[in-house]
Structures are given as structure tokens and as C-alpha cells.
């Protein structure tokens, strides 16, 4: 077997051979090799994470018509390392009355919840942690641990801003988890599996974005809310809640929340690509080399991350009542209807040629989106008229 075709397996067998020659138990050697592999992957991710700091700062400054970091190293590339040194040597303050155990556990769990997601993310056909047959549900399970870390931070800080910010964030996260779960069901229906690698394999003819554009859009909205990014970043509405649940954190503990948030955004960019844009697939190029496939996946993940940033730096923050109403009254019912329509259309169009299937699924999504927007518009017009009173016709035209 060639290293270039299956790098993980070749390296693992080579290392296990070495460890075996040292007289190590075969099973133990295997676990040790897997441990080293996981360590390598997660450390590489942390390195990527460091450059995400630079990327995020560069992108936001371009959106705001600035240049961004450009002094430390070429194009400011060394800037994030300076930031890290600063974070490491900052004094770590634990506020009075903090619940120390929970306060210290929260940043660790926050980072762990993001890193453990990569156990099921297929980076290339042969580069993946494990092929869990419950892959997509595992994402939600990891998200549950992230939610817990926010409650811990909010509660443990003994600070009103942190507590209110944390609870608001959690209310938003659990609210938007409903459309997210529902949208995870749609690729599951298409692929007939919850395994992420099987989902990518099943997208050989057509990306799921084409047959479920509305699903991809709702999933993206839910992801942005899960991440707590604008326009859903009310937990850190700085004019009222300072920085939300991490108000009291400083030094490296704050750094863990910050790095975790950025890596979380890129991870979900990657998961969006896996579920709706074929993951590491790109017109057969992924067959050439697993390294090329990994590069394709990374590129797609960064594009997803860029879209999340694009939304963040374009939209204004909405109020918590608007946001929860938007979820419970609009997004959740819409996602249920979409799920039912998708299941029905998928069953009805199953025997038809693939172009009929694709067009049928696409237009059922478009029609549903149009209907939902029309209903929302008429309802909100009525609400507005109830509040403001009916306007004269001439004025209404302007």
C-alpha cells in the first residue's frame, strides 16, 4: 500500500511495527498509535485555529474598509502569535464568590466540545477519525456539551451579566437546535444513513444543496444561532451585557473561549459543506490523492466560514424577543413543513429519471420558500396595520 494513497493506515502500520519490535502489546500499541494520530490532528487544528484569528481580523477589517493587522510579519501573519503570547502572560483573575470548579471547567469543556466533533468529520476518504453510524446525531451530542460549558461559565462567574448572557445564549441555542435537528434529517433521508462519510459518498451525482436549497439555508441560519454570532449574538450585546457569559474570564481561559468560537465556526462551515456541498468531493478530484481531497474539504470549510463571517459583519443584532419569535413561529414550523415535503417528494419521485428528481426537489423547495415568505409578509403587514392603523393608499405606495 502506498503512503500517498492511504497515509494514515501506512503510518499506523509502520509505527505499530516499531512499537511491536520494542515488545509492546499489539492492542496497546494500536491504542497508542491512535492516540498519537488524534493528538497530531487536534494540534494541527489548533494551528489552523491560530491562523483563523488572523483571517477573521483581516476579513472583518476589509468589510469595514480597514486594512487590519499588517505590522507583525508579512501581511500581519505573525500577529496571532503575538496575541497568544499576550494571552498567556496575562494575569488570570478569578472573581470573588466564583464557583471555582465550574468556573475553571467551563473553558476546557467549551474547547473540548469543538475538538471532539472532529472525531466524526471525514477530511478525506481515508483520513477520518471514526466512521460512527450515528455521525450527525453525534454533532448534536457534542453541541450539548458546548451548551453546558456556557451555563457553567455563566453560573460559575457569580456575575449578573455573565449569568443573564449565558442563559440567553442557552435559550437561543436550544431554540435553534430544533430547526437544526430537523435539517439534519434531510441529508439523512437522501443518503439513507447518519454516517457522514456515507453522506459524502451518496452525493456523487448531485450535491444536496441542489435538491434541498431551503434546507441548506435553514441549517446555516441555525448554525449561526448555535455559534452565537451576529445577527444572533445578543448574549454579548455589549451595550447591555458586556461580553455575555465570558465577561469575567481573562488570560488563557478567555483565550479558550475565543479560539473555541472561531474553530467552532470553521468546523460548522465544514459540516455545512459535508451535509450539503459534497464534503471532500469535487468532480472526481478527490480520487487523485487523499491530500488533494483534504485540501478540497479545507477550502470548502473556509468558504463556509467566510459566509458565516460575511453574515456576521453585514447584519445588525436583533433583539432576543424577535429572535425567539423568528425561531419558534417561523423557522421551526417551516423546517417541519420542509421535512414533510422533502420526505413526500423523495418518495413520489424516487423512480423517475434523475433530472426530473432534481428539478422536482429543487422547485418544491423554491415554492415552499416563496409561500413561507408570502405568509410571513401578510401576517406582519396585518400586525403592523394593527399597531400603526391603516395607512392612506397614496402614502402606502411610497
Amino acid at each position, binding site marked *: 500500500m502506498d503512503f500517498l494513497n492511504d497515509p494514515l493506515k501506512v503510518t499506523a502500520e509502520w509505527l505499530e511495527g516499531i512499537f511491536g519490535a520494542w515488545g509492546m502489546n499489539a*492492542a496497546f500499541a494500536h491504542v497508542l498509535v491512535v492516540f498519537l494520530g488524534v493528538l497530531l490532528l487536534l494540534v494541527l487544528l489548533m494551528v489552523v485555529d491560530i491562523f483563523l484569528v488572523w483571517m477573521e481580523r483581516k476579513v472583518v477589517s476589509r468589510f469595514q474598509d480597514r486594512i487590519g493587522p499588517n505590522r507583525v510579519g508579512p501581511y500581519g501573519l505573525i500577529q496571532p502569535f503575538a496575541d497568544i503570547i499576550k494571552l498567556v502572560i496575562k494575569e488570570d483573575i478569578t472573581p470573588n464568590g466564583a*464557583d471555582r*470548579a*465550574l468556573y475553571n471547567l467551563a473553558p476546557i469543556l467549551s474547547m473540548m466540545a469543538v475538538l471532539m466533533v472532529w472525531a466524526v468529520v471525514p477530511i478525506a476518504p481515508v483520513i477520518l477519525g471514526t466512521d*460512527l*453510524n*450515528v455521525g450527525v*446525531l*453525534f454533532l*448534536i*451530542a457534542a*453541541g*450539548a*456539551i458546548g*451548551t*453546558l460549558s456556557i*451555563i*457553567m461559565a455563566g*453560573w460559575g462567574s457569580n456575575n449578573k451579566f455573565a449569568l443573564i448572557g449565558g*442563559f440567553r445564549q*442557552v435559550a437561543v441555542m*436550544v431554540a435553534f*437546535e430544533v430547526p437544526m435537528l430537523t435539517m439534519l434529517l434531510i441529508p439523512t433521508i437522501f443518503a*439513507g444513513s*447518519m454516517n457522514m462519510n456515507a453522506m459524502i459518498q451518496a452525493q456523487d451525482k448531485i450535491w444536496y444543496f441542489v435538491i434541498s436549497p431551503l434546507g441548506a439555508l435553514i441549517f446555516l441560519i441555525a448554525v449561526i444561532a448555535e455559534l452565537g454570532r451576529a445577527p444572533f449574538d445578543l448574549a454579548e450585546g455589549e451595550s447591555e451585557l458586556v461580553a455575555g457569559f465570558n465577561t469575567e474570564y481573562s488570560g488563557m481561559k478567555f483565550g479558550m473561549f475565543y479560539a473555541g468560537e472561531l474553530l467552532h465556526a470553521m468546523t460548522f462551515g465544514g459540516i455545512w459543506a459535508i451535509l450539503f456541498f459534497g464534503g471532500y468531493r469535487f468532480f472526481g478530484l478527490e480520487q487523485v490523492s487523499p491530500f488533494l481531497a483534504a485540501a478540497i474539504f479545507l477550502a470548502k470549510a473556509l468558504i463556509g466560514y467566510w459566509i458565516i463571517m460575511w453574515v456576521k459583519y453585514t447584519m445588525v443584532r436583533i433583539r432576543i424577543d424577535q429572535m425567539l419569535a423568528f425561531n419558534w413561529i417561523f423557522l421551526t414550523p417551516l423546517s417541519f413543513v420542509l421535512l414533510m415535503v422533502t420526505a413526500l417528494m423523495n418518495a413520489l419521485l424516487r423512480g423517475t429519471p434523475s433530472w426530473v428528481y432534481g428539478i422536482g426537489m429543487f422547485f418544491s423547495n423554491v415554492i415552499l420558500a416563496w409561500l413561507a415568505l408570502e405568509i410571513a409578509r401578510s401576517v406582519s403587514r396585518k400586525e403592523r396595520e394593527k399597531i400603526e392603523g391603516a395607512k392612506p393608499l397614496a402614502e402606502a405606495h411610497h
Partner: protein
Amino acid sequence: MTPEKIIFLIVAGATLVSALMVVTTRNIVHAAFWLIAALFGVAAIFAILNAGFIAVVQVVVYIGAIAILFIFAVMLTRKDLRDTSAQQNRNWQAGALIAALTFGGLAALFQSWEKLSVAAPAIPSSFDAVAELGSQLTSPSAYVLPFEVASVLLLAAMIGAVYIAFTRK
């Protein structure tokens, strides 16, 4: 002792310690977090048993939703989060005796049950528990009625919760 057994004993021990902490800690929020640890330990035991779907469901439902509900309920109801009353009442000796007898009786019963020591047959690699569950849940000759009744049950739970909160307002 196989490595699997060692892992099981560690996880089971951690679960039991967490469960004990739930009832002994005086801080109600800590009790909620120890409960989460115990629930997570149960999920790990499911994973050791190769019941991956149940393990993930345990985390998603119990830690992701029920634990959050507990914590919200704690924040809603109690102003004094520290329990200062005595943790035992005068019946604790009788309670301990009954618990010990129950445990001993169950242990004796299971010792005499020969199926306890039978090794479980290996799961064939083609077996997909989730797909099997799916076909059982939708098959009219199997569990389709419980599947739909579960939905009615969830509806009842939601209406009940809304009703309680509504009248309190």
C-alpha cells in the same frame, strides 16, 4: 481482566460516585452538574456495550435537554440555592438496611441465573442498529402504533407544560 472490563469498572465507578454526589452535595446547582456527570457515565456504558445510537441519544436528550431544563427550573424556583437542613432523617438506618437487603437479594438471584455468565453473541458487522430500529418503528406488524402514541404523549407533555405556565401567569 480484559481492558474492556477495566474501562467498564472505571466508568461504572465514576457513574456511581457522581450519583452519590448528587444526593450528598448541598449546593443544588452542583447537584445538577453531578447528575449530568452520572448521566454521561451511563452514556459511556452504552457506548462500551456497542449501543452507539442509545449512547448518543442519552447525551442528546438527557444532557442536551433534560439537564438544561433542570438548571432552568432551579433558576426559576429557588432563591436559596444552599440546602441547610439535615441530610438524613431518623429512618436512615432502616433505609440502609432495606437497601443492603435488596442489593444482596438481587445479587444472590443473579448469581444463580446461569444466563448471566453467557457471553453475548458477536454482532455481525453488517448489522445496522439504526436502520433496524427504523424498519421496526414503521412496520405495521411491529411498533408503528407505539411510534405514533409516543407523538401523542409528547403532545400531552407540551400542552401540560404550557397549561401550567399559563395559569401561573
